[in-house]
């Protein structure tokens, strides 16, 4: 009887502690975005390193990266003159999140027409 009580209350208590596991891996994504906005202490190449790290860690944990990570990284590559890696990351964002396709295509077309 006493054992039953203990089991019952333990389940009750642990049940109350249940937290939901995040669906995506964020790592230092928020901090990288914040650093980009602050545009001071942390340089663009360091922000790129942070985000490449986030993608690496997500892969290691077998979790999907958060929406926007690849798009943000692509933007950093474009801003630092690396258009090919920028394009690669925009394409990954579109594959992972088709909701982004219209916007990223709009940006790419705009870029292309600007160059011509």
């Amino acid at each position, binding site marked *: 009887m006493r054992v039953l009580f203990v089991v019952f209350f333990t389940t009750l208590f642990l049940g109350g502690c249940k937290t939901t596991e995040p669906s995506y891996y964020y790592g230092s994504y*928020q901090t990288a*975005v914040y650093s980009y906005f602050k545009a001071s202490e942390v340089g663009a190449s360091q922000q790129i390193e942070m985000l490449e790290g986030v993608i690496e860690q997500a892969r290691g944990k077998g979790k999907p990266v958060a929406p926007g990570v690849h798009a943000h990284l692509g933007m950093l590559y474009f801003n630092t003159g690396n258009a090919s890696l920028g394009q690669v990351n925009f394409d990954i964002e579109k594959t992972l999140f088709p909701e982004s396709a219209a*916007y990223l295509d709009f940006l790419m077309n705009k870029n292309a027409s600007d160059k011509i």
Partner: protein
Amino acid sequence: MRHIQIAVIIVFVVFTSACVNLPPAYDYTNFRSADPHSILVLPPLNNSTEVIAPYSVMSQIVAPLAESGFYVFPVALVDQTFKNNGLTVANDIHAVPIEKLHEIFGADAALYIDIKEYGTSYVVISSDTVVNVSATLVSLKTGDILWQGAARASSAENRGNSGGGLIGMLVEAAVNQIIETVSDAGFGIAGIASTRLLSAEGHNGLLHGPRSAKYGQPATSEKQK
């Protein structure tokens, strides 16, 4: 007999006043019929004196939206797109017609955020970092308001009293203010406020979006009814 009656009334009042009533469940009718899949976070209006406030809130708002099951447009890239098109002031961005936003971003809904308080203040007894935000989710197809909410978070919520009477409290307040301004406490508090404001797990937060395993389930506040 009369004493018993009074005692019953007192006990009753004490018990009922102890009950905290949560606000009534939000009416999700418009939200359900619009069924947004993607959310565009617009640069927030800033009514605080901290210039960094909108950037901190924009950085922290992504996670609770994504975890609730929505695609969130990359906030920094969105901000840069507005700037490249000559829109540098949040007030002007909030005035852009929804048709235009829908055309450029292809988003289902936009989140209009208003920062009411942000920052650390030193008020003799306690130094406190506060973030207070409200937000409105608007359908970019119809212009309907799908959801509205407000949330506040403060660093004073979890901090223990160090003891040592009034002097101890004064020292703690001064030390806290130094720690909080140096380590950018607002950024962390903005994360708590954002989750409180939006998370589909919270009372009167968003509904779960299509990328969530709980998509289509009733909202947390509707279950509590």
